[in-house]
């Protein structure tokens, strides 16, 4: 019997005919204009442009000049619920996901209280079934209260719908503790997603350790704080034949460690965030707390290593680590500000603008990596194929918009791309067969 692991509010199944959009799905080798017919929330037919008739009761959407992708999947977001609903709620976080072209997101457990018990997971499932605009999955904690000392009831949590487990925001400091979780994984399954840093190396660091932190007199978080833990935990995973996923990789040394352990046969995977792929610690010279997150923005060589890792598949997927904070919480001196930036609404446009348009990475690869997170969690990959549930993102890649100029769907505005003009506007998002975001004109897409 399969356990349900994604939850969303009831919605009317879509009846749509998207005409003539350039359909790009790297996995089904589609990359040409097509008509795509959605009936009862599923893809019913794919045909040559202008060939599919509009059924009664279906909406026609002119897709000419637009791109149709499988909708994106984000394995790493913070929805701040329960306990910090002033930053984000299930409703606003999933609205941001819909606006960003996502059909699925995974919420982290560093809430207040920590998501570390089946009753709390049950309450969140119920809440998601009322409020979530796009499907949400939950990753409870590996250790109770994220304290690093006692395992959560992983088997019961898995039965209650846990996608996997993570202490995100913190590392599992003790190797012995992680080893127990890996052993327990054999019983209950579910990936262990790891936020890697060694607190004895990170200290009270607030940014990347390097020339910029030296200039600003701020305590640095050295790259080796992350990479030594990636290496350690890969070794543990290999020894226990377990499966771990490294969250938000940020530096050369981590990518090298991941590649080496993959080559050695360990079941390890990695993600990178749009901000680590497009920004460096130079941005922190502004002393603007919108550039503060953990792991921190690192050096150009690190950014290049992440891009190379994404290109060659060492890094499987893109995850935003969407981390909303209220304005007043971020409007403090850099060292005092909380870690984290939002990302759901800007992920694709920033990668398209900064990596695809300059020719650094191909469009198809970005689409592939923005949908690959689902498979890591044993979920079906969003795909454009007849019979598949409609998980679609229709984008205007010619249109541009200014980040933040018209506010955000997220409850928080701590975007490190605020004020940037980006190419790529999401015109329509279909998630789990329902229209969750729609803008008829470019102007409305921005509203």
């Amino acid at each position, binding site marked *: 019997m399969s356990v349900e692991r994604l939850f969303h509010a009831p919605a009317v199944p879509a009846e749509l005919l998207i005409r003539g959009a350039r359909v790009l799905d790297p996995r089904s080798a589609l990359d040409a204009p097509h008509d795509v017919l959605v009936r009862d929330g599923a893809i019913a037919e794919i045909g040559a442009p202008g060939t599919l008739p509009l059924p009664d009761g279906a909406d026609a959407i002119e897709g000419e000049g637009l791109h149709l992708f499988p909708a994106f999947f984000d394995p790493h977001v913070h929805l701040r619920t329960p306990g910090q609903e002033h930053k984000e709620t299930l409703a606003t976080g999933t609205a941001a996901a819909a606006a960003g072209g996502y059909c699925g997101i995974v919420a982290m457990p560093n809430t207040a209280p920590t998501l570390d018990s089946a009753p709390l997971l049950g309450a969140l499932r119920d809440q998601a079934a009322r409020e979530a605009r796009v499907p949400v999955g939950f990753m409870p904690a590996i250790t109770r209260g994220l304290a690093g000392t006692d395992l959560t009831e992983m088997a019961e949590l898995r039965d209650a719908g846990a996608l996997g487990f993570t202490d995100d925001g913190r590392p599992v400091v003790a190797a012995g503790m992680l080893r127990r979780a890996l052993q327990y994984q054999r019983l209950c399954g579910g990936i262990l997603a790891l936020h890697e840093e060694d607190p004895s190396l990170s200290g009270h660091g607030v940014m990347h350790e390097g020339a910029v*932190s*030296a*200039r*600003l*007199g*701020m305590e640095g978080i050295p790259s080796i704080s992350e990479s030594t833990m990636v290496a350690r935990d890969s070794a543990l995973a290999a020894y226990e034949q377990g499966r771990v996923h490294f969250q938000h990789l940020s530096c050369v040394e981590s990518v090298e460690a991941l590649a080496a352990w993959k080559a050695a046969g360990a079941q390890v995977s990695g993600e990178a965030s749009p901000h680590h792929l497009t920004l460096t610690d130079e941005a922190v010279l502004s002393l603007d707390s919108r550039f503060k997150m953990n792991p921190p923005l690192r050096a150009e060589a690190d950014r290049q290593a992440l891009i190379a890792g994404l290109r060659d598949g060492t890094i499987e997927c893109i995850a935003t680590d969407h981390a909303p904070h209220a304005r007043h919480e971020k*409007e*403090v*001196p*850099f060292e005092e500000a909380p870690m984290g930036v939002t990302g759901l609404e800007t992920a694709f446009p920033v990668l398209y603008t900064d990596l695809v348009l300059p020719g650094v990475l191909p469009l198809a690869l970005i689409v592939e990596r923005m949908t690959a997170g689902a498979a890591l969690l044993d979920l079906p990959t969003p795909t454009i194929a007849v019979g598949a549930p409609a998980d679609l993102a229709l984008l205007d890649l010619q249109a541009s918009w200014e980040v933040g100029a018209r506010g955000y769907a997220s409850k928080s505005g701590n975007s490190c791309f605020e004020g940037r003009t980006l190419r790529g506007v999401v015109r329509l998002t279909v998630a789990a067969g329902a229209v969750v975001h729609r803008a008829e004109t470019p102007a409305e897409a921005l509203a």
Partner: protein
Amino acid sequence: MTPEPRHLLSIDDLDRPGIERILDRAASFAEVAGREIKKVPALRGRTVVNLFYEASTRTSSSFELAAKRLSADVVSIRAATSSVTKGESLKDTVQTLTAYDPAAIVIRSPHAGAAQLVARWTDAAVVNAGDGKHEHPTQALLDVYTLRSRLGALDGKNVWIVGDVLHSRVARSNILAFARMGAQVTVSGPPTLIPRGIEALGCHVAPTLDRLPEADVVYVLRMQNERMNEAYVPSLREYATRYQVNAARLQPHQLLMHPGPVNRGVELSADAIDSPQALIAQQVEAGVVVRMAVLYELLAGTGTVPTVELTPEAVAAA
């Protein structure tokens, strides 16, 4: 020439002519300081707020005195006695103070970038009186002023900055300022207290004092007791053995500086502090005139120093 800066947040706000203009202005104020009545009416009717979130003796008193000698009304706020202790945010505090329409806000904060933030939230000119371990630009200016008074131009001079560079905002501002004035800057201290990547500021790094005799100026930083608890150095005794500047290490031709307060017997020996080469008292003295010059440059523009009574209107127009 760079445009007139509205704020002094970092030494990076000033090019060499900008620094020289402030030093020249300070020199003309030094003349006033020699008189019996030490006041000039340049800022009469204008308000200067000193907002100090950290303990400070030299910096706060010299800013206060500088503003008073320019005839400004001065409000000094210390975190320990203000509503900051009731949890008021920096932004709310600044917005409250802005209601008094200050011409300038002088801020000292334990956090890097605090002065930049204040500048974003107020129309007043903002002077950074020390932000975290980031910068302390008026200290650098008064140090350059002190050295220039003694040596003339700094071009080609060797300046060594010795000690806890990692935790020192003075070190960062001074590396930038000394280098901008043409000096060769070397930093030296225990490797645990030299930040990785500091060379990018335009200095050399020397792990020992072996080449200290090359220095024309030895600038010693304060070594705080708590660094020992954080395992940056095994003991102050070992630190002193390797890095203390004392009569044995100091060459007769060298000038000695320290931003204060000094830990006698740790980073400096008593004989070094009391030697005629030490400029420590001159640095403190320079603090007032240099801060007068900074406030004057930001608020009163670039006229000649008014030495006669001016009307408030004329001052406002200056």
